[in-house]
Structure formats: C-alpha cells, structure tokens
C-alpha cells in the first residue's frame, strides 16, 4: 500500500552524516516541499539546499514543540539516536538515556498530538546482541538481547522496544516504521564500526571471525527516503543478504596488511585504548567475536526494485575512497 506524497518533512538528528545524505536525496526527490532539520548539536552547514531549514534545538524543550506547532510537517524522520562513539560510554550514560529514550518518547508523543502521518525511527541491529547462540538470519521477531551482557546498550534496546510498543498501540492513528539496519558504513558516517574498520592500528581477533553485513550510507539514506511512501507500519531489519567475515572486511576497508591477536589480548588493549584515544565501546568486542546476522527480506517485499545498490563487499571497498 503506497502512502501519499509528503507535504513537509522533519529530519531529527540533522548533524549526523546519514541525515545529511538523506536530506540531499529528499531534496532531489521532492524539490518543492519544505524540509526541516533539527539537532541539539551544532549543525555544520557544509551543504546548501534551497528547501532546507536548520534548527539547533534540544528535543526535550518547549521550542521543539513550537516547531511541531508552527511548521505543519506530516513526516518525521527520527535519525537522532545518540551513538556510543561520540562520548565516553561510561561517563555520559545518563545523557544518552535521556536523549534516546526520553527524547524519542517526546518525539512520538508530539507526532501523535500534531497528527503527523508517518514517523520513521532509525534503530539498529545491535538490539539483538552478538551472542554465541545466535542463529544466522535473525528475523524481526527475534528476542532483543543486546543489553544482556552490556548495560551500556540498554538505551538502544529500550528505545526500540518503547517505539515498537508505542507503534502497535497507536497503529490506527499514525504510521510508524522502525528500521533496524545492519552496520551502516561510509565516509560520512562516524560510527563505531566505521572507526573500527578504518583504523588499521586496531587488530582483528585471531580466535574468532564472525560474519558481518554492511550497508553503504547512500543505500541506507535511499531506503529511508523510499520508505516514506512505500513501507507501512512495522519493524524491519535492513541488510544485504551477502556477508563478509570481519577479517576480510577489515582487510578490504584498510587496504593494508592486517594483524590479528587472540581476543583475550585484544580485550584489555581495547579497554585501555578506549579510555585514552579510541573511544570505542566495550560491546564492540562481542560483535567482533560472535555473529549477529539479520534477515533483511521483509522490508524488500515493499519495493519493486531493491533500494540497496551496493553489496557488503562493495560498501567496504567504498570506504577506501576519499
């Protein structure tokens, strides 16, 4: 079932790389409709689009509601989940919980209050957790075990669960699409996995070699753009069906010889480096140890043509381009 063309779009998390690419694609697809970008962080205005307005606002303040009241948009893209890489994961957990859980809750409530037609929420495949007993090709109804071993992932799981519950509760009033993409990588994206893949100083595990799925930032932005009209209410995994082992992916992405260490050596090293320079969260160690391969077929049923252009291998190869 196809949704009508949007009249105005709000992008939350506009300071992020994915949001910027999405804004470009939206501006190209809908050149006449107004697009608003909002983020509590400063938005680097390194791009200019005629129909884009930018606002630096926290999601929990009154001005944010004013935006909903004044601007009359009908589509909200919530791409503003705070990741673990930009802040020290231990120190800022309160800030992250506040933004990811309370912020999302407020966005959903405001969307309902101001009769928004569709909200697209960007979650992550991390909600499933990387565990040794994960079956391959996890479906959307698999249990969310991401925070079992790492409480720092609590906000990610809670945000997803809260949105999904809210979605079914209000399914007759508003369309909500929750996307759980695999590893989004690309030159604009500054997430944990991109940092891991492109930092040649970080070794790969010698004793484990799980399979990974990657989606290129352009493909992800394209899929979000296309979802506005084509994807109905529901929770969807987003992934390529092709996979790469982590060692293979890292050797492609860094374009150099890799060195491996047994994880029992890597683990203390990563912890030490995390506290000093790298700022990688501890949970990443489980993701380079155990598989978390998801089944992305469900969302593809809503597209006549596969919106994902690049394979996992190609996405890694594109990381090496300037």
């Amino acid at each position: 079932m196809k949704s009508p063309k949007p009249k105005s779009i709000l992008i939350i998390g506009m300071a992020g790389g994915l949001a910027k690419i999405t804004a470009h694609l939206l501006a190209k697809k809908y050149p006449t409709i107004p697009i608003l970008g909002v983020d509590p962080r400063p938005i680097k205005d390194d791009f200019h689009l005629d129909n884009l307005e930018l606002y630096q606002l926290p999601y929990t303040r009154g001005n944010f509601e004013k935006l909903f009241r004044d601007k009359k948009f009908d589509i909200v893209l919530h791409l503003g989940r705070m990741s673990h890489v930009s802040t020290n994961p231990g120190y800022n957990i309160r800030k992250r919980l506040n933004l990811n859980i309370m912020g999302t809750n407020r966005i959903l409530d405001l969307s309902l209050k101001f009769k928004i037609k569709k909200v697209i929420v960007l979650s992550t495949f991390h909600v499933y957790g990387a565990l040794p007993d994960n079956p391959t090709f996890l479906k959307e109804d698999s249990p969310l075990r991401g925070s079992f071993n790492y409480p720092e992932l609590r906000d990610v799981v809670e945000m997803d669960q809260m949105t999904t519950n809210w979605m079914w509760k209000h399914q007759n009033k508003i369309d909500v699409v929750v996307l759980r993409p695999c590893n989004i990588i690309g030159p604009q994206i500054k997430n944990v996995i991109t940092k891991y893949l492109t930092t040649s100083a970080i070794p790969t595990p010698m004793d484990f070699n799980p399979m990974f799925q990657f989606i290129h930032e352009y493909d992800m932005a394209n899929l979000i753009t296309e979802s506005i009209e084509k994807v109905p209410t529901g929770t969807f995994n987003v992934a390529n069906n092709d996979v790469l082992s982590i060692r293979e992916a890292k050797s492609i992405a860094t374009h150099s010889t890799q060195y491996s260490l047994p994880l029992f050596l890597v683990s203390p090293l990563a912890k030490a480096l995390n506290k000093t320079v790298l700022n990688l969260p501890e949970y990443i160690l489980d993701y380079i140890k155990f598989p978390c391969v998801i089944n992305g077929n469900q969302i593809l049923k809503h597209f006549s043509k596969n919106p994902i252009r690049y394979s996992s291998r190609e996405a890694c190869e594109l990381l090496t381009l300037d």
Partner: protein
Amino acid sequence: MYTETFLGDRIIRETEKSSNDSMFCKEHDSPLRNKQAKFGAIMELVNKLRKLIPLSSDIPEEKINDLFQELFERYPDGEDPWGLNLEKTQKVVETLYPLYKDYFKVRLFGKENVKNKPYIVVSNHSGQIALDGLLIGLAFGLDIYPPRILRGMIERFVTNLPFVGTWTAEAGAVLGDRQNCLQLLKRGESVLVFPEGVNGVAKSTPDYYKLQKFTKGFYRMALSAQVEILPVAVIGAEETYPYVYQAKGVAKKLGLPALPLSPSMLLGPLGFLPLPSPIDIHIGKPITPPSDLHGEEQDRDIREHIYQVENQIKDMIEEGRKNRRPFWAVKKET
C-alpha cells in the same frame, strides 16, 4: 583395500630388523658413533611407529582440487553466512586426508543410498571427542559424488570456544538451532545431526555402542522441511580411547558437559590423542517422513517414527560390529 593383518606380525618383523641393526652398531664403538647410533635409533623408532600407523604422504591433490572446484561452483563467494570458508576447508581436508584414509582407515558402506539432494543425516554419536562428525563430513566430501559440505549441527558451548568455534564454522559446522537447520535445508544443503547429543559421546566403556535416547528436534525439522532422513552408523570410534570412565558427578559440579577419564590420560597431553581404531561408516536406506504429519505435531504422534529411525541405526550398528575389522588392522600395501 584393507586386510585383517595384525599389527603383531609387523611388530615381530620390525623388532627382528631392529635387533640386526643394533648388532651392527656395536662393532664401531666411539662417542660420535654412539651419538649417531642413538639418533639413528630414535629415527628408526619414529619410522617404525610411522610404519605401524602408516600415514601416507600421498595426498591426492588433484582429486581434492577437482572436488573443491565443484564446491566453489556451488559457493561462488567461497563463504556463506554461517561462516563457511571453502579455501580454509580445502586446506583442512588436505591436512586431515591421511588421518581419514590411513590413521582411522575409514571404510564407507552404502554410498549408493545417497542421491544428489538435501538430507538430514542422522548418526549415532561416539568416541568422547566427536571425531565421528569430522569423519562423516570427510566421507561426504571425498567419497560421495557429487561432493557436498555436510553442515554438522554443533553444541552451543562449541561456538563460544576461542579458535575451535571459528575453525568448525569455517569447515561448515553450524550452531545446532532449528532456524539454522531449516534455512540450510531450504538452501538445498544437507545437515548432520546427532540426536543423542552429548550423552552419545559421554559414555563409559561398558556403555559403548548403546544408543542413547534420541531427541525429537531432528524429526520435527524433517517434517517441516519434508526432507528425507539418512541414517548413519559409525563403528570403531568408541575404541579410540582404551578405557573410559565418565565422572558425571564431578562434571556436573564443574559445569562441564562431560568429564571422560581414561588411563591413557596419565600420559599427559599425548594420552588425549585418539588411538587409530579402524572406523567404518555405514549409510542406510533413506527414511521418508510421512507427508500427513507436520513439524508441530504432538510428541506422541512422532514418537513411533523416531523409534523407527533409532531401530534402523541400532540394527546398522549390530550388523556393522559383526563385520568390523580388528582394532589393529592395518592397510595392506598394494
């Protein structure tokens, strides 16, 4: 081809030869000569042991290359989402080939029962360290045409083990999970299951070849996927350790799946090496699951069918034990 030649005959021949050699050494007595003689004696002993357990250096590289060329056509990326790595598997097969052919002297019976289609291969489990899975996998890859990577379903604790989890995955093993099993069958792959579970391998010597109670999951999978069950009996793997006592109570307290104790383990790490018991793999006639049942049937409706599989494997074990080779049978040099 193998004959029931007893190792004892060889020991006598080798001892005679060895005593002649030592007599020769005594005639030239000097410190250097003594050293050389000692080294020579060690090498001789190594060679003798090598002859007693003949490991051929003749790996049929061409044959293995051809088989893997076919497999690469099936898996063009050389990898799959479960972690299979064909390039590494080929190296593993080349390394293990002498173990398969010469150390365990594997004989395969009933390969005419295997057709070019997916199966749930169901086998008895034996041998303390689950060598049977490895040998069945090699048999399906090397001695059955067209070659296939048999996807062994492994216990959850294995996937958690450093190195071991990765090696098994690269060789085609997957976590024993229903979702994995169904996905693989849907892709036309054959899976290998041991419905006895850990109880099958964790047996004390008096219980050797006693089939443990089968779990029901494999039959439900066969019904869901409507795939034939291929019964397999492995004979000889139980004797790879001379005498085993399973300390079940201690294992439970330590949180281990099993704790086999064997006198050979007094030798240290060397004692953990399995003995070269000749192994026979018997493949039975496929069993077609009834089409009027589905995967979610009640236990009572499928129990009889599971007994049928169990009984067929029990009969194959009995028959196989009657026709087995003696423990010290060696490969006849032709």
